[in-house]
């Protein structure tokens, strides 16, 4: 049996009962589908993840890719899986049919990623980056670029990357120094990139790098950056591969985790012979890249969730089978499975609420993103555009931080065994750690949320979030069973909104003090969102409990986890709010040498 553990019922509960994802078929783009087709896809993804991807997790961990003579070599199992992933249509399932997609909703990609990431995070980064790169070309490239690259990337023949970071341009991309020198229709690229996931490998014959660089003479800063297509191997007019394109892998990082995913340093144009093709408009590279970046941020949250989800289930299996210690209760039941111990139950219930809440948060976000993308021009569409803008940094930061925390807690359930490599949990913990660091550290996400997202369009993103949450509370505040928690949520949320506005108002007056408290504010928004989503699930489950005799304990769990999480979390959020807007300035005032 594999390491990957998931309860498909939890996924379908959110999709079908909470979100009614079949309703997506009423959108124009999806009118050819029905809910059954979506269900089928999810079930197929489960099979693929368990059958093909799951074994890669261990294989990749013990046979990490190696760099030899400028070429990264991976194990053959990865190569086979990558090809099959593309051929079976997983890479491009949500893309339009023009270049080999299947036209499924984007939301399905998120769900598929949840499942595939859980089975092997390190592997799934490769097709996911390929998708992102191909989709960028599909969106911003010329017709010729599209037909040259996109179909081969979608079906797994070629792979793709995104090359942003340089050693002195990480969080601050405006410092990029890679240059592009016009050379007829094309450009000569020169520079060094680091931390490039799947930047080199032998899974495919070619790798299409999407590179940020500055055209000679372009303005300094972020407004002078353009996006280039830089294939590893030149492509002949007939589509066959030509000479190597002077892109050299100079090293791969030794990392804490994700050992199977090569993190490359790439040198472009060391022999002045690296050709790049402008993708999209000059000097608009960063904003083009952000299309991919936003998706990448959400997917980072998905990764946090996915690994947490399988970690929880692994801990659960252990807790239900490991016999240790006597029952503490007055009944004296003798030696018991550890799930009987209150402290273990506490950890399990917390993890369960966490996983279900994050999943609902992300799937809800994915559903709203469909509305934002596919509804015809309307106020409603704008509402969803704003809402998902607000949710993106929340999903990225919170699910990465908490995904890690869940893995840590799962290890704690296993005690000493959790620390050893015989169980998958210690690898999960190492793998998931990257999520709070890449695609913009969580500190960057907090600045984005409390600065940009609170402010743009006169606060429209914030207002969309506020509206959606307030609507929920208003509608359900008198619910017999959950009403008190919903009212409590509303009270805390209102205080948070007020605090957030006060904090945001500081941004101009006192930017340093403002920036001292953006991160705790992001966490409060995230926790409020969690309580909201969990209570929403609980309301749905409560209705189901009344309507059916089946799955009673399953639905009951949704109620209990929501009330538990609300009871544990709301008082803490409330207590923390005062601290973000207090006048104390010790973070700024403390002398540098007093640290």
């Amino acid at each position, binding site marked *: 049996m594999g390491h990957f553990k998931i309860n498909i019922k939890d996924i379908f509960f959110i999709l079908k009962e909470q979100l009614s994802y079949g309703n997506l078929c009423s959108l124009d783009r999806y009118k050819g589908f029905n809910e059954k087709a979506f269900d089928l896809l999810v079930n197929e993804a489960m099979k693929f993840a368990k059958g093909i991807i799951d074994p890669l997790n261990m294989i990749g961990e013990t046979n990490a890719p190696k760099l030899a003579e400028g070429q990264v070599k991976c194990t053959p199992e990865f190569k086979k899986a990558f090809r099959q992933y593309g051929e079976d249509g997983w890479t491009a399932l949500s893309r339009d049919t023009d270049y080999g997609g299947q036209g499924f909703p984007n939301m399905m990609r998120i769900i598929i990623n949840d499942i595939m990431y859980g089975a092997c995070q390190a592997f799934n980064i490769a097709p996911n980056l390929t998708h992102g790169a191909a989709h960028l070309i599909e969106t911003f490239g010329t017709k010729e670029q599209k037909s040259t690259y996109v179909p081969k990337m979608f079906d797994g023949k070629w792979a793709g990357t995104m090359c942003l970071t340089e050693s002195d341009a990480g969080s601050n991309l405006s410092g990029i120094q890679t240059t592009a020198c016009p050379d007829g229709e094309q450009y000569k690229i020169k520079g060094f990139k680091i931390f490039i996931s799947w930047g080199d490998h032998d899974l495919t014959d070619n790798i299409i790098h999407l590179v940020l660089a500055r055209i000679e003479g372009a303005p300094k800063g972020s407004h002078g950056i353009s996006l280039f297509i830089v294939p590893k191997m030149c492509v002949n007019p007939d589509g066959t591969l030509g000479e190597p394109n002077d892109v050299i892998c100079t090293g791969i990082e030794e990392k804490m985790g994700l050992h199977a995913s090569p993190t490359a340093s790439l040198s472009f144009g060391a022999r002045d012979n690296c050709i790049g093709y402008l993708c999209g408009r000059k000097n608009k590279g960063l904003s083009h890249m952000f299309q991919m970046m936003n998706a990448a941020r959400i997917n980072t949250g998905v990764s946090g969730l996915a690994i947490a989800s399988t970690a929880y289930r692994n801990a659960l299996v252990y807790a239900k089978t490991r016999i240790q210690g006597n029952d503490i209760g007055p009944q004296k039941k003798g030696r018991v499975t550890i799930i009987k111990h209150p*402290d273990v139950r506490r950890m399990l219930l917390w993890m369960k609420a966490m996983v279900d809440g994050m999943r609902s948060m992300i799937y809800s976000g994915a559903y709203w993103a469909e509305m934002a993308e596919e509804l015809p021009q309307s106020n409603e569409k704008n509402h969803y555009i704003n809402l998902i803008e607000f949710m993106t940094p929340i999903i990225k930061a919170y699910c990465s931080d908490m995904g890690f925390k869940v893995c840590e807690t799962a290890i704690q359930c296993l005690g000493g065994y959790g620390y050893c*490599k015989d169980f998958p949990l210690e690898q999960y913990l190492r793998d998931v750690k990257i999520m*709070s660091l890449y695609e913009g550290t969580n500190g960057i996400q907090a600045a984005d949320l409390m600065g940009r997202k609170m402010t743009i369009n006169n606060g429209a993103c914030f207002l969309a979030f506020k509206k959606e949450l307030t609507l929920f509370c208003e509608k359900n505040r008198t619910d017999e069973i959950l009403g008190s928690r919903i009212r409590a949520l509303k009270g805390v949320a209102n205080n948070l909104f007020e605090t957030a506005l006060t904090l945001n108002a500081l941004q101009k007056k006192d930017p*340093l003090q403002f920036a*001292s408290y953006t991160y705790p504010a992001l966490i409060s928004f995230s926790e409020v969102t969690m309580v909201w989503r969990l209570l929403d699930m609980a309301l749905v489950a409560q209705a189901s409990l009344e309507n059916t005799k089946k799955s009673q304990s399953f639905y009951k769990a949704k109620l209990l986890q929501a009330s538990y999480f609300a009871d544990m979390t709301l008082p803490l959020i409330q*207590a*923390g709010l005062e601290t973000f807007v207090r006048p104390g300035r010790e973070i700024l005032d403390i002398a*540098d040498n007093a640290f």
Partner: protein
Amino acid sequence: MVQIIADRRDVDFNLYEIFNAQELCDHKKFKEFNQKTFNMIVKEARNFAIKEMLAVYKDGDEIGVNFEDGTVKVPDSFHRVHKLFCENEWTAPASNPEFGGQGLPYMVAGAIKEYMMGANWPLYAYASMGVGTGRMIETFGTKGQIETYLNKLYTGKWGGTMLLTESDAGTDLGALTTTAVKNFDGTYSLTGNKIFITNGEHDLCENIIHPVLARIKGDPEGTKGISIFIVPKFLVNPDLSLGERNDILCTGAEEKHGIHGSATCSLALGSKGNCVGYLLGEERKGMNIMFNMMNGARLSTGAQAMAYASTAYLYALDYARNRIQGKDLKDILNPKAPSVPIIHHPDVRRNLLWMKSYVEGLRSLIYYTLNCMDRSGCEIDKKRQEKLDNLIEILTPIIKGYSSERGYEVCIQAMQVFGGAGYIRDCPVEALARDCKITSIYEGCTGVQAMDLLGRKAGMNKGAVFMDFIGEIKSVIEKAKQDENIKDTAQRVETAVNRFHEIASHLGRKTKSLEIDVAFAHATPFMEIMGDICMAWMHLLRANTASYKIAAKPKKRDRDFYTGQLKTAEFFIHTILPVTMGKMDVVADTVSTAIDIPESSFGGL
């Protein structure tokens, strides 16, 4: 290498300014020392830690230990440093000089340990774990046992371990199945398998002395039937030379998340029917005796986590001072503004100050406890001594449980300061985080510490010990309230402590009711709260001390350090403690959801 990982100023602040280690020298036990000699010794330890131990740390992490044919080889480079460590007599700084120890106060030994554990814990443990074993023999052993083992253990010539865990007896030691049969000569023959034995086998010492928990055939089930035995790897001849190889064999070493340099062994006892053990203390008193060692091990694990956290924090701080990235927020619109070190970015500063507040709070709590141990050792008044010993008892689960959890979180936050570079093996914090994770698991996992606190320690002597603990905090509050600089901050702590007292009584009552399981579902949150309260207490004490020093108009460097203490206390007490108040509201509600939820609701297998 530039020495950046030893927080010398803060260690000295604790030793000589807050807890006044120099005053111990007035007592006859420590009369041959003075502040100068303490300083010299600690300085030597620091130099040794940085120059020798830190230099081979990476070998431990990257090469790790190698198990082959029943033997475990440590990295080659460990051998020389281990030898030096023993020759320089760092193995037993606070132990009895009569048997090879150095007789230093625990506080000073704590400073030595902190530097060494922060530099290279696996290497430190090989050389010093014999002290725990030795202390048990010193306390409970026969004269013959003391003469045979003690000097060798205290001087590091022989290694020590503790053999408790079996595959089905981890947290639940009462379930262990290793047996002992008494022989005609008074020795015992042991049979069984132990796992997760730190330093259970290695090639650094000529002999290893294993204290082993086992059940004498016919003794009752559960913890009451457990005895403890001394099982040497090589039997010792009457002239103290080494004799036959005992029948205790290493059958494997674990592949782990971290502490790769430390051998975590599986040991088979008596597989050839010939494992000789010597009873330590009385029959069926094994658990009590082991707990004597266990308490020390728990305090040491808390200190280990703090040392990792401190080291990780200082690495992150160094990076934040040197890594240039992004403009100062004040100049964000000025295109000509230069990029600045990331310590200028408020979010990075927040993270650093957060780390600082835990590292320093934990350090002070640990030194406070060590100070209690020293004072108890000098005390002639039995009542006062008992009070000190009980304070140590009640703080032990906090130091083990809370320090290991927060220490790890500090390591993780330190990675965050590095950004993507924090995930790379070159970044020293990456390994520290992996190493630190063990501290919340071994020597009784966090949940066990929380149960120990709520179930045993908080109610000790009908709550009198808890009252003494509260009294200790209150006396600091009273002093701080007289101090204009920190009056308001002290008030905050007072409110929190009063509330904590209520919560403790409330939860204590629940543990004696039918809702005992509901109470214990709040054991860990309770321990977390008490930990936060201890941090606030320590920060107040630190701020009070600093405020007093500032009044004496010190030089700029010192003034910045002391003012920094005021700021850190303010940060913790005004930003973190309010959330603790929220945590207390949650515990006051004592919801029963975690107990009510049916097992099937967690999901099927």
